[in-house]
């Protein structure tokens, strides 16, 4: 057990180091110069002040030292939770900018990932056994999973937001409110959250439902299921076994899908003007804001690694074969 987690941790640590390094490298290979960006923004009119201002901004962004030192500084700053200063939102520090946006993104991601996975699996399993359900869920699932997030988002915003006026179409909470711990505010924040959540939920839901349906059908036709049936085991029990077995590939699928879901959340946020990380990434790219881009990507990398780690742990808990494998047995 210890060796298993030790090895896993080492792999995650290495991945982390490589990811952080790439994260540092990529913006620096992008064309563009953040200092020039700042000079353009302050529309320097006095030719004499150009050189001092360039020097000044290079110092502010830590670009006035050799590259290797910039890399080392990046690590040491990072370990202190400092990700530099944003170019686009100068003079705001990147950490602060990201921390303000992260709650919104997490509030969308975690419920939509978990609920779509749970609901998708249940509905998929049901569909595998009922003809009428199969005939409706399967095509619906295919349509949903093939729908681009932002397109579904636009449809929902248009139909439920603009035409029917049930849901708001923009913002994290009503523009008429100030954050407070009151029922009114929380209910309001919830209505703003619901549509972006729904579009993420629906797309992911379709994928899980199809996957589960296929897996259940496969499992029910497996030898052990036939054998159990021949022994006269109740169908309910067989189905429960099939369900458990089918869960394992779905769990692996969840780990693989995380990155895609994060990307989906980003475009969905843009459609609904939801103040999370998505809009920040878009603007950071357009404004060649290295530091903000690095910070957001780093956050995503850490998030995905962490989630994968958790899934690894869950895998050990739910799959007895992994456990026996760990204890030196053969599966």
């Amino acid at each position, binding site marked *: 057990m210890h060796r298993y987690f030790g090895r896993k941790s080492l792999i995650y640590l290495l991945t982390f180091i490589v990811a952080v390094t790439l994260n540092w490298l990529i913006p620096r290979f992008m064309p563009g110069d953040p200092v020039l960006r700042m000079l*353009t923004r302050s529309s320097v*009119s006095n030719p004499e002040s150009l050189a001092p201002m360039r020097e000044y901004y290079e110092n502010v962004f830590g670009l006035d030292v050799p590259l290797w030192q910039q890399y080392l500084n990046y690590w040491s700053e990072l370990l202190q939770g400092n990700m530099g200063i944003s170019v686009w939102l100068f003079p705001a520090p990147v950490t602060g900018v990201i921390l303000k946006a992260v709650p919104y993104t997490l509030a969308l991601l975690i419920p939509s990932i978990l609920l779509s996975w749970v609901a998708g699996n249940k509905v998929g399993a049901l569909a595998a056994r009922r003809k009428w359900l199969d005939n409706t869920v399967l095509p619906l699932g295919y349509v949903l999973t093939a729908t681009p997030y932002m397109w579904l988002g636009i449809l929902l915003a248009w139909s439920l937001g603009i035409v029917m*006026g*049930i849901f708001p179409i*923009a913002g994290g909470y009503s523009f008429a409110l100030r954050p407070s711990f009151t029922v009114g505010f929380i209910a*309001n924040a919830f209505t703003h959250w619901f549509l972006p959540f729904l579009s993420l939920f629906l797309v992911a839901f379709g994928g899980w439902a199809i996957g589960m349906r296929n897996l259940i059908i496969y499992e029910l036709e497996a030898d052990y299921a036939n054998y159990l049936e021949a022994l006269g085991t109740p169908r309910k029990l067989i189905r429960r076994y099939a369900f458990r077995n089918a869960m394992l590939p779905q769990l692996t699928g969840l780990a693989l899908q995380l990155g895609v879901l994060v990307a989906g959340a980003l475009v969905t946020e843009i459609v609904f003007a939801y103040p999370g990380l998505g809009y920040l990434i878009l603007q950071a790219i357009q404004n060649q804001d290295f530091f903000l881009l690095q910070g957001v990507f780093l956050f995503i990398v850490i998030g995905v690694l962490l989630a994968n780690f958790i899934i690894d742990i869950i895998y050990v808990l739910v799959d007895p074969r992994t456990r026996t494998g760990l204890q030196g047995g053969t599966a």
Partner: protein
Amino acid sequence: MRSRLAQFAAVLLAVSMTASACPGDSKTPDNPAGAGGYPRNETLYTSGTQWGPPNSWNPVVPSHAMGTVGLAYETLFLFDAEKLVLTPWLAEKGEWTDSKTYTLTIREGIKWGDGKPFVADDVAYTAELGKIKAVPYSNLWNWLGSVQVVDPRTVKFTFTDTRYQEWDNWLYENAIVPKHIWSTRSEKDITTSANEKPIGTGPYEYLTHDQDRMVWQKKSEWWATKALKLEVKPKYIVDIVNSSNEVALGLLLQGKMDLSNNFLPGVANLASGKFNIKTYYPEAPYMLSANTAVLIPNTTKAPLNDAAFRKALASSVDTKKIVEGVYGKIVKQSNATGLLPTWDSYVDQAAVSELGFKFDTAGAKSILAQAGYTDRNGDGFVETPSGAPIKLSLIVPAGWTDWMESIRVISAGAQAAGINVVPEFPDSGALDDARTAGNFDLVINNWTEVSNTPWTWYNYIFQMPVQAQQFNANFERYSNQQAWDLVQKLSRTASNDPAFKTTLSELQKISLRELPVIPLWYNGLWAQANDTVWTNWPSSASGAPKHFPTTWNNFWEKGSIYMLCDLKPVGK
């Protein structure tokens, strides 16, 4: 299993019920329940100024939150675009005591947000901030000699080089900051501080902000109420950060936004319909003109260094098609001089009719032929007189859909005349770099706004010397010492001096003859107001206020602040 599904459906249903019953989001504007809400009939919702989370309230450096200058901090004068004069604001009066000295008297009884009185020291201190190189107006000290506080209400400015036009520009564009707060800051802090909780003299104070909004609250007291009988009407101003124009349009249609200063394609259809949406003019061009969109050729590159070639290019552009096809008539075609309608009285009409260019494909072809540009290899496009092929890229930022469509029209027109112009759409950052460094063939730019003086326009075109990097003027890198001398002379001439008009007319002739930039259309002061909650918006109708209906930074001091005083709540 079935029961679980039913449960799930029930939850979904319950969720949508809560949603529809939720306060503050119903279709009718009402008062939101819960603590800390802004009553709808006292709140003005705006957008169109901020493109990112509010992050700075520092009036000294650009890209501060909407309203930092105008609502919180104020300027000495306002600019009246109708009469082309400065109106005293924080200043009571200002006058030239001799050709080198300007004496400014500040208004009495103005207080900073913290209760301290506004004094002449604050004005002198703000001017002296320009001695810091990182302050955008540091070039002030190239021609200003000294600032002297005579008494608590009087400041004397002594110039080494009197530049009337530039000085007037400085007077109304820069906000005065309180010395007693700012002088405790280091030089670095002054230009990098976010200055949270700004303390100014203006009618509003900072209330709160979030990723997607900036909220201002009316102060209990504002000096102009007593001095000028002015009172801002909205108690709260909530400025919504733009995410996309679609979102702005949606909010506007739902009546959740009162004033949108976003570019909304197709707004002409809405303005004539029953959507409660008003624009400044009820018919074309719908919007006031805010700045001139110009086609900038890189004059350091052949064949764009040839005035005849630029003239041919200018004549090949079907601007009418851009105005009508791309914009749906919400912009106006520019005068050949590029001078904004505000400056119409300065336009030398004789020079325009003699030297101005107009759309004429055949004319463009004949200019090209006369100057030796002919199609020798038969590919349909002309080559240079020495036979080298010509292929010019024309760039605008990706995602600026109106400009993207416009340059497709420009490129089609140029190609019809035999000039191979290809539209390209780099990221806005990359485009900025190319423009700054001069690594482009053709680019569209609109960085001169309505101002007190056409000097800003000619400074933008002719500024010299041309540097390796050009940040805010002369992107075409055009060197003409004679023109630059005239621009400087213009700045040194008072507007009421007869020499002002003659100098301007000479500059117009040079720009028409040489076409260092090609003026195309006047970009609009995009403004769409929904009058469900607030009414009496600025408009061309008789009796209606005539101020700029906008929240854009740099416009509060051009009179937009009056808009807030003119507004009337509906149903009261």
